[in-house]
């Protein structure tokens, strides 16, 4: 099941042009593709870059109903919306659209509660590996070795595996996707929209401003993250993990591009030592091994 571009073209425009997003913004690409795939979405946005790119009140770039809410309140507010719309008998799709700060860190308990209750919500996490709207501080999603404004010598800890934490909640659908593979993302969103309950989609969304990369290569970085094995593409349904067609060949390290091909295009990895690169490579392999156990 792979979607064709003409079908995507028929979808409504959800993000209006002339907004506050930086040139080459990865999350804008992720948002456009994901939200346009949904039927009558209502989007909850906690503090994150998405609360900034919508521009200044009273003008808004989002062309869908949007609730801006506090950092750690996305999934709870979405729970309220989903239940209220059920009570009112309205056909809508309730969405959490959160960055990695809101998902990996400060908002972890709110989504964990909503996932445990299996609320009827699609939770998207656009993952740019750090706190982008406050100017590039480390998050639980920052990979080892990456320089952020709060890890000037490179982060010393490994990146959290949010997909495995989410998987421990035994929710009906989990997927990872990258803006380097937009049709794969769109297809996964469509699939998620057919399922009831708490669904989670993690999207690799490069940030040229914070990663210190060329805005023009934002989609290429999305592809490279998959091809180097940095960002595995998979789905988890009923506890069973399936690596996606687009990314399964990178399960075998032999097929992966060298990680340097990914790192060298980003200023945040410029000062990586060979030891840090080795540790990062080990982290990636460890994650592949752990994910493979869920197959």
């Amino acid at each position, binding site marked *: 099941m792979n979607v064709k571009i003409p079908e995507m073209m028929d979808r409504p425009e959800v993000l209006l042009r002339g907004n506050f997003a930086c040139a080459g913004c990865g999350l804008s690409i992720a948002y456009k593709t994901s939200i346009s795939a949904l039927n009558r979405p209502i989007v*909850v946005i906690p503090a994150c870059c998405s609360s900034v790119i919508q521009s200044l009140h009273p003008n*808004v770039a989002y062309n*869908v*109903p*949007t*609730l801006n809410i*506090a950092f750690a309140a996305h999934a709870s507010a979405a729970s*309220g919306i989903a239940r209220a719309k059920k009570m009112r008998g309205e056909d809508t799709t309730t969405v959490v659209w959160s960055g990695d700060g809101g998902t990996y860190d400060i908002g972890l308990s709110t989504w964990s*509660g909503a996932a445990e209750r299996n609320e009827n919500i699609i939770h998207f996490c656009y993952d740019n590996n750090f706190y982008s709207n406050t100017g590039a501080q480390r998050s639980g999603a920052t990979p080892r070795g990456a320089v952020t404004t709060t890890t000037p010598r490179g982060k010393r800890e490994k990146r959290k595996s949010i997909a495995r934490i989410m998987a421990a909640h035994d929710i009906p659908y989990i997927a990872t996707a990258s803006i380097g593979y937009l049709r794969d993302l769109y297809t996964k969103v469509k699939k998620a929209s057919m399922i009831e309950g708490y669904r989670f989609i993690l999207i690799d969304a490069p940030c040229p401003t914070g990663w210190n990369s060329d805005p023009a290569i934002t989609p290429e970085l999305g592809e490279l993250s998959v091809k180097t094995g940095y960002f595995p593409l998979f789905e988890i349904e009923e506890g069973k993990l399936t690596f996606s067609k687009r990314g399964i060949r990178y399960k075998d390290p032999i097929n992966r591009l060298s990680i340097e091909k990914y790192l060298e295009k980003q200023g945040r990895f410029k000062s990586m030592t060979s030891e840090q690169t080795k540790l990062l490579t080990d982290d990636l392999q460890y994650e592949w091994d752990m994910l493979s156990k869920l197959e």
Partner: protein
Amino acid sequence: MCSCLSRKEEAESLGNDSRVEVKEMVQSLEKPQTKLMTGAEAVATAAKLSRPQVIAAYPITPQTKIVETLSGMVARGEMDTEYINVESEHSAMGAVIGASLAGTRTFTATSSHGLLYMGELVWWAGMTRIPVVMPVVNRSLNPWNIWPDHQDAMAFRDAGWIQFYAKNNQEVLDLTICAFKIAEHHKIWMPVMVCLDGFILSHTSAQVEIPSQAIVDAFLPPFEPLAMLDPDNPFAHGSLTDSEGIWEQRMSLIDGFNNARVLIPQILKEYTDKIGRLGDYLIEVTGNIEEAECAIMALGTLGEEAEQTVEFLSEKNIKTVVFRLRVFRPFPRKELISLIKRVPRLLVIDRAVSFGNAGQLAIEIQAELFAHKVDVLFYQKIMGLGGMDVTYADIAVEVENILKEE
């Protein structure tokens, strides 16, 4: 009513005892009843009669009985309500904000640390005008202590919420029903806190008259959203706002409270006319104001305790009067000043402190006295923190000390 039928059917399959229970319940919907109930049960009963469509709450002592009672009512099909068992108070308020903006009547309840943990979203609801009703069962803050004082609710006096303080279980029930109508009035449209003292009210049984469902329905029509998250008419709620925008919204909130000052008595009057109880006053006056040597002012059950003091002291031939503030936000300045002008002395009792200054009620009244150049001998006392028992006799001692000092 339809929820009753399913309960009735269920009961019929269970046998005679349940059938009697159902009969009682159906009666309760048709005509007013008097029941012995705790303050927590009064809150739950009021909530049930007000037909909230979404409830989200997290248990905390001494609020627990409210959420337990309500979840029982929902589980038994007595309420047509989505009940969300959230994982924290922060999420409870998050969920009701979402549900309210999605077009439903919402309700939650909390206390003490729960209110503090909810704090960020208490402000969110206040500043962005979410018409939720939330009873706060007043309880002291840390270190751990479960007994009543007003420190919790007072910490949120500036958060853009209307605040009521109830004196007994009857008032808890009546004000909670009125709170929905007040919160949802299109010229007010803001959240309402109904404060009740922990244990003294929440866990103490007293006679409460319960209005019939029909009369409450006549008083409180279904929820009518001013703005609703709707794919056919999209808007972004609470998006990034510049200084001018914030200024405009804050000024509007000030206007909203001014509207509330006018509209609250009207709504209380409408309730009183329909139900035959409650009264439309913002400040309850007990005792003979013309003869009083000293007026006593307090909130909640301290106000009711002070009413006993009036009687107690009159036996000693000391004339006092009680001004019990029923509503603290909006602050009923005009009514207060017109009362205080008529007495020679005023004793203000606070059950909370603004540390570094004085009791919040005392501070605010002093400001009004200065602004209106009221000539009264002013006294203040902090009492009952951490649930310290305060009796009518304790209050009498304070009054006697004042009179002796002069």
